[in-house]
């Protein structure tokens, strides 16, 4: 099992998939802090004064995380960032679902409408992504020549050429 999980092609696909999802999720928000703030506001979880700061910075952190996951640079840090953010999203989603909030997720598109109530679906997606990110974090460098010394650039570079 461990061998499969740490197989570099498996890792590559996983990193690419999660990285792409992170980038896709962030692009809509990069230049639309206002709409994203609105989405965060609807969760009714955070103090109002933090909301704009989060709406401004979070999409860029997500975007960079996505880029790093795909390129393989800073694999450990990027996958941990993915784990942390997905975990936070999970808490927000579960809490929204438990409180019966009738809101759109704000996960990908900010203009979702008519058909809402997708929160439970998003929770499932989030859990899968979380598992994926954890696998990257835990097994990424097992059989690769370069150990995690903080400079993952070499390995990442090698892999991205292959892909």
């Amino acid at each position, binding site marked *: 099992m461990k061998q499969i999980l740490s197989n570099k092609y498996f890792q590559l696909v996983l990193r690419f998939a999660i990285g792409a999802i992170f980038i896709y999720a962030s692009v809509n928000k*990069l*230049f*639309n*802090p*206002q709409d994203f*703030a*609105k989405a965060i*506001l*609807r969760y*009714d979880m955070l103090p*109002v*004064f933090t*909301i*704009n*700061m989060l*709406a*401004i*910075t*979070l*999409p*860029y*952190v*997500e*975007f*960079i*995380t996505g880029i*790093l996951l795909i390129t393989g640079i*800073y694999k*450990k*840090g*990027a996958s*941990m*960032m993915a784990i*942390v953010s997905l975990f936070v999203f999970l808490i927000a989603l579960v809490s929204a679902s438990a409180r019966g909030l*009738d*809101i*759109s997720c704000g996960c990908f598109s900010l*203009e*979702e*409408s*008519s*058909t*809402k*109530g997708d929160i439970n679906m998003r929770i499932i997606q989030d859990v899968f992504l979380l598992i994926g990110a954890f696998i990257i*974090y835990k097994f990424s460098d097992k059989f690769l020549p370069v150990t*995690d*010394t*903080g400079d993952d650039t070499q390995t990442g570079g090698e892999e991205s050429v292959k892909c």
Partner: protein
Amino acid sequence: MKNNTVKQLLIIIAVGAGLGLLVNAVNPGGVPLILDKNIYKVDIADSNKQKSNIPEGFVNDPYDTSSYKQGHNWQVKEKNKQGFVEPEQKISKELAKQMYDIKALFIDARKKEDFDVLHVTGAINIPYEEFHAKPRQEQMSIMKKFNKDGIIVVYCKGEKCEVSIDLAYDLAKLGFNGVNIYKGGIHEWKSAGYPVEEK
């Protein structure tokens, strides 16, 4: 978690946050760092406690455009001060009915096919998605025949829809001061026995 991971994590956060702040500073659609506390939603739970601030005997004229210059302010008080409209001024069905009785403009934010099947009697249909996609000028030309300070009630289906909120934002951004969101929507309205037109 290894130190190394923490270090990378911090770098990612710092670079991301820095980039975000930088872009926000130059982005014309950027927002202030701190959202004004006063511009905050009225929770739906409070809508039951809401009292109407409509003066007795007042009858709204949705088509009175003289108020484009200056006028009174109804339910939505704070608008667009810092690039934000008050996000969710939700009203109860009782208040919605009161507004209906004084001839508030009811706007159905759903798609045309849904509107055709069932809508509040006298409501007009502005499908949010079509409206939002239009440039501001066109949005304004659709809305220019309506009273900017008149009372507007926006609604959609009810339970699982947000197009009413989204449309309310767009209208408030165009300068409409009296936009209210009736979150109960057409289903609640109908089950309360209030007037509807149905096919």
